[in-house]
């Protein structure tokens, strides 16, 4: 049925490093025509870096990329396009103020008139063949995410691409949109193209993929070939992948000591959240009817694929995003309070955006410990800074939290991600905390720092402080939480007590299946 399959791109032992992180660690892959090749992995597994190297945005530090058998250095996006590699990035790459047609025409010789008529004809032909419907005259900003993706796929086709990369294309789509995208991928493969499909969702991987490669912490940990895909049932494949992704319990360096969990407690809840809602906004699905409570010393895990409202929930709790509904902490109503008063009431928020909002990169490490207490004694007296008190406390915190910095005066932006996270942890765990919201506390950290952060969370809970732990890492949630709530499209899809078997239920909820 399919045209004979050929190797188009071969990645040979490709390694890419960023300061403090090995994003890809000698990864080898083969991309074949007529095949949907799924790259599966958690956040931080190195999928996006791999895509950047294939599309010319980044270049590998080590290893080779072979295109049609000859080693090629893909120097720029233009070069990638010329090689027939088209990419649909995770974040839309359409210019919002231009129309669809104008976006599709970008990249032609600059002195020419755009060939609108030719475009119209070709776009219509391709759309018809692939069963897409694209309104060429609509402004890109007015399109839904699914429509934007269709436009970007169409753009790749218009440029005669042989390889189409879809980076986390389904993460913001409706189930219907996902099904349509899946069908489209199948049709492209049937026409002999190579499709690289990046996703977290197991079901999609199994439904749409011919071949599945599993990445973990920058390394390739497994590949399921088409023969095996065909010979086994979907459920079997899923359990294989879960094993590859989330690890067998033995021999995994990331294995976490499980926290001794509490039984169901009759204590009064520390925080009660009722009917919290936020209208959907650009790039997030909003929040709908969020209700939960956390008891003192309890850890409530929040699971879910990235971008399903977890960050908005955290910001609504912290007071950074205005939201409807009631948030009562130890009897005090927080709704309507600004950020500072909520902090004084005992609520702490450890952001996932460490450099963007958690710290001021150009400020010294020492000062970053106190950004949320500016003006408060004993570090300030009548508005004046007391460098002695600040230096002393900073030195204590640097020691206590093992922040590896050349000096307390070093700008925090020059530290590694793990050390920046230690600065944030030190700040949020300081005296007076009653409830701490951790947003992806170990995201992007290396193993030692990850384990350190998890250890701190355990200690915090043992001291009777309530913890809300937002994470995309299932293993982490299973290890630390008493209960796990799964978020999907701005709602809590279900809350599961963390006992044996929770892994399967949460995993199924996370990957879009019923628990």
């Amino acid at each position, binding site marked *: 049925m399919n045209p004979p399959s050929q190797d188009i791109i071969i990645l040979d032992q490709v390694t890419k490093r960023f300061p403090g992180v090995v994003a890809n660690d000698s990864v080898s892959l083969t991309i074949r025509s007529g095949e949907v090749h799924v790259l599966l992995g958690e956040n931080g597994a190195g999928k996006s870096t791999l895509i950047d190297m294939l599309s010319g945005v980044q270049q590998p530090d080590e290893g080779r990329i072979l295109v049609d058998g000859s080693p090629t250095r893909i120097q720029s996006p233009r070069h990638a396009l010329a090689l027939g590699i088209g990419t649909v990035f995770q974040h839309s790459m359409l210019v919002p103020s*231009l129309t669809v047609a104008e976006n599709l025409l970008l990249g032609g010789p600059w*002195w020419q008139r755009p060939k609108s008529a030719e475009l119209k004809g070709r776009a219509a032909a391709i759309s018809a063949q692939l069963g897409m419907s694209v309104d060429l005259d609509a402004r890109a900003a007015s399109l839904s995410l699914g429509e934007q993706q269709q436009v970007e796929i169409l753009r790749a086709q218009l440029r005669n691409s042989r390889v189409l990369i879809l980076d986390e294309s389904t993460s913001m789509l409706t189930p219907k949109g996902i099904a349509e995208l899946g069908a489209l991928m199948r049709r492209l493969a049937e026409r002999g193209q190579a499709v690289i499909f990046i996703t977290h969702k197991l079901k999609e991987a199994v439904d749409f993929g011919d071949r599945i490669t599993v990445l973990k912490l920058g390394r390739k940990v497994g590949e399921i070939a088409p023969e095996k895909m065909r010979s086994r049932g979907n459920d079997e494949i899923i359990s294989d992948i879960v094993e590859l992704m989330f690890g067998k319990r033995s021999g995994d360096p990331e294995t976490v000591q499980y926290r001794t969990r509490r039984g169901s407690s009759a204590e009064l809840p520390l925080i009660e959240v009722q009917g919290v809602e936020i209208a959907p906004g650009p790039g997030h699905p909003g929040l709908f009817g969020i209700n939960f409570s956390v008891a003192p010393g309890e850890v409530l895990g929040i699971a879910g694929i990235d971008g399903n409202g977890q960050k908005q929930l955290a910001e609504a709790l912290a007071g950074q995003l205005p939201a409807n509904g009631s948030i009562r902490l130890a009897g005090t109503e927080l709704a309507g309070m600004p950020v500072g008063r909520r902090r004084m009431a005992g609520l702490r928020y450890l952001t996932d955006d460490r450099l963007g909002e958690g710290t001021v990169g150009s400020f010294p490490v020492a000062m970053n410990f106190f950004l949320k207490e500016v003006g408060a004694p004993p570090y300030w007296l009548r508005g004046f800074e007391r460098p002695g008190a600040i230096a002393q406390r900073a030195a204590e915190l640097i020691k206590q939290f093992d922040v590896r910095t050349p000096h307390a005066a070093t700008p925090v932006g020059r530290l590694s991600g793990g050390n920046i996270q230690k600065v944030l942890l030190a700040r949020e765990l300081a005296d007076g905390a009653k409830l701490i919201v951790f947003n992806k506390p170990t995201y992007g950290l290396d193993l030692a720092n990850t384990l350190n952060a998890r250890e701190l969370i355990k200690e915090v809970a043992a001291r009777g402080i309530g913890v809300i732990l937002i994470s995309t890492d299932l293993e982490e949630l299973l290890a630390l939480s008493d209960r796990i709530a799964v978020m999907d499209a701005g709602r809590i899809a279900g809350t599961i007590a963390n006992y044996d078997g929770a892994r399967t239920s949460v995993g199924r909820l996370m990957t879009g299946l019923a628990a």
Partner: protein
Amino acid sequence: MNALFTQVFISALLFGAITAAVPLLLAGLGEQMSEKSGVLNIGIEGMMISGAYGGFLGAYYGSSLWLGFLTGGFAGMAVACVMVLLCVRLGLNQIVIGIGITLACEGLTALLHHFQFSRTYPRLEAADVTVIPLLSDIPVLGPALFKHHLIVYLAVAMVFVMSYIYRHTQLGLNLQAAGDKPAALDVAGVDVVRTRTLAVMTTGFMAGLGGAYLANIGAGIFVPYITNGAGFLGIVLAMLARGRPIWVLIGALLFGVCLSLTTAMQVAGINMPTDVIQMLPFLAVMTMLMIFGRRASLPAALGLPYQRGVR
């Protein structure tokens, strides 16, 4: 007050308005292109005064106004090269460098002028006007609008050329994308730095042309600081025009009328400080800003250098 409403007066007023508007129009159109591509070009005042000086040199030594316009445009472009190198290629702060360039050009042209012309103060001969047949016979409007130097008509034509470029060419799409979402342009295979370079160079040429007009046609002479903020007005016009050249024209004419009115009232012997009228266009603009707010009207990436792969 009757003197205000004679045909000759109104005709002279409009004629003066157009003369005053042309440099602002050229600067505004130029700045608009930079801003569209994401570069806030504060150095335009410097490009303009360099154009005025270079244009005067060309016209004076070459005895040709057209040569003057050419040298003026290239002088502006030469200054734009510095801006491109420092801000577009190296990504230095556009405001700091823009102010530095403006001050350097103002001082340098004043210095050079001093050594060359401070004793002689040579003047150019009055420029030839191109009279457009038939249209120039219309009473009042004819002599005001259709008896100008050819460059004036060309400047107005530039409005339509720019409109055409922005709406109907590949270049227009590239510029818009470079200012709005440079990463999208990059992955579409167009070099963002090259696009912005082209835009800033064009700005330099247009601003230089505007400066040359100011010296060669408007004044007939180069004096230090002759632009007197015309480049900054160009920035204001470009920011208010929301990317549409026709609004630069309208804004330039509004400012031109006010500038012309000040001269006209002095001629008419009306005892009111010219400053009152000079304030009018700014008051109008600030009022508009107060009413509408302008959160969404500037290119998203304005003022930000672009580097591939840095997210």
